[in-house]
């Protein structure tokens, strides 16, 4: 079970949270203007990296607020959290080697 650092409540166990999947996937501003391929890309295509992943979390059984997190999907280590709407930060250098290289 992950220990997730909620920016509002501090570290809490994963069962209090709901993962909202990959972050920074913007809905096309004018859906009627994009073709099927672009719409499918918005709906379905995901980065799914082995390494640093930007994702959304909801502290459902806590403050009930959303936040973004950077997590290394190879080690499951949380590298940073930041507010919804903020740009993705650079991950801090991980102790003992670059993230995602394990």
């Amino acid at each position: 079970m992950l220990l997730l650092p909620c920016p509002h409540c501090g570290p809490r166990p994963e069962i209090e949270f709901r993962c909202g999947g990959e972050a920074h996937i913007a809905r096309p501003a004018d859906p009627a203007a994009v073709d099927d391929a672009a719409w499918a890309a918005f709906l379905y295509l995901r980065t799914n990296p082995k390494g640093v992943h930007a994702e959304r979390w909801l502290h459902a059984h806590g403050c009930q607020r959303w936040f973004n997190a950077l997590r290394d999907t190879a080690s499951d280590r949380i590298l940073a959290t930041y507010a919804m709407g903020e740009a993705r930060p650079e991950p801090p250098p991980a102790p003992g080697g670059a993230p995602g290289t394990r």
Partner: protein
Amino acid sequence: MPQSCNNPGLAKRVGRRLRREAGRIRRSYSVGTLVLHALAGHRRWHRQWRAAEPKGSYDAVIVGGGGHGLATAYYLARRHHMRNIAVLEKGWIGGGNTGRNTTIVRSNYLQDESAAIYEHALKLWEGLSQELGYNVMLSQRGVMMLAHNQHDVHSLKRHVYANRLNGIDNEWLTPAEAKAFCPPLDISTSARHPVLGAALQRRGGVARHDAVAWGYACAADALGVDIVEGCEVMGFRRDAGGAVAGVETSRGFIATPRVGVVAAGHTSVVMARAGLRLPLESFPLQALVSEPVKPVFPCVVMSNTVHAYISQSDKGELVIGAGTDQYVSYSQQGGLHIATHTLEAICELFPQFSRLKMLRSWGGIVDVTPDRSPIIGTTPVPGLFVNCGWGTGGFKATPGSGDVFAHTIVAGRPHPIAAPFSLDRFRTGRLIDEAAAAAVAH
């Protein structure tokens, strides 16, 4: 020191006999060879397949040496006579999801497209040991899916009727009939999750998952396929027209006009090296086994509502499957609360197992598509084919998946059974919704 060495003369004679027969018995596993090898101290078993060195070029390269990849290579060689091909495996054969699943085989899927491919696979399963000359220990002991509420009853009956229309065996059982088929089942009306009935596919069952990988590897190897372990694909080389010209690997460049990617949980990683994004997310999926006990469980039981599936292996362990974690991960380990949730469900259904100790638990990385159906077919890159997205239910499809994918690679266009599972369905919207692919809620 092995006991047989107490008699050096005998050991020497047996050793000579084994060497003489090495070519012939190489892939033969009979009582006779077992006795001979036991007398020789089990030091003369042969490799089951060559430790192939990668050549400079092949007619086709399969990326991923799991069950699906090996099956693809085998059918390419057997049915399409492509012998100059290689399977590139990053780790070792049988080290990925092929050796991490709960070994369940069935074909009672709801949608016509799914029924077609899983039934195609089940028919191949039924002759697989004979075809490969390798015992995959298919045991058609029956797969029973429990209904605990009215919605389950409606849903499972719909499955039964849809399956029958597709010529697939599936039948509805009353609680008493379910109890007769699976005596450990508690059908008391006071149960927390009462059993209102069950859908039974008698042709469903289990198979020995390692043997499936090994059997396909042996059979493909015997046909001349190079199985290269410890060889990771790092990139793709394209020609002037954009088509695949070869793969860059951790063991050098390999030229090939056709590449089939069958990398399961790591498909997104491999395809990103070809510059493609896929509708996939990779999640850890856990399973666990109990300490071995005497035969107590005659079939496979699945319950969507309480979220559990269970069977007993030939070694006596109860094999129990859990759900996926909620986040993308490649760590091959899931949260303990996921396994706990599953064990609670098992103990609710089968209170008599509550005192069993769990022996091992593990995780595999499953690639899940938005509609929970696989992707088999061509990609925007000419010469690059993909077979992925089997999610939590790929093992049962192994032979069928390999067969239709081999056809797809040879023909350059999808096999009729594979055609609905195109990558393009996410653009056209013709999704194949199998959200219950593992028969448990996701």
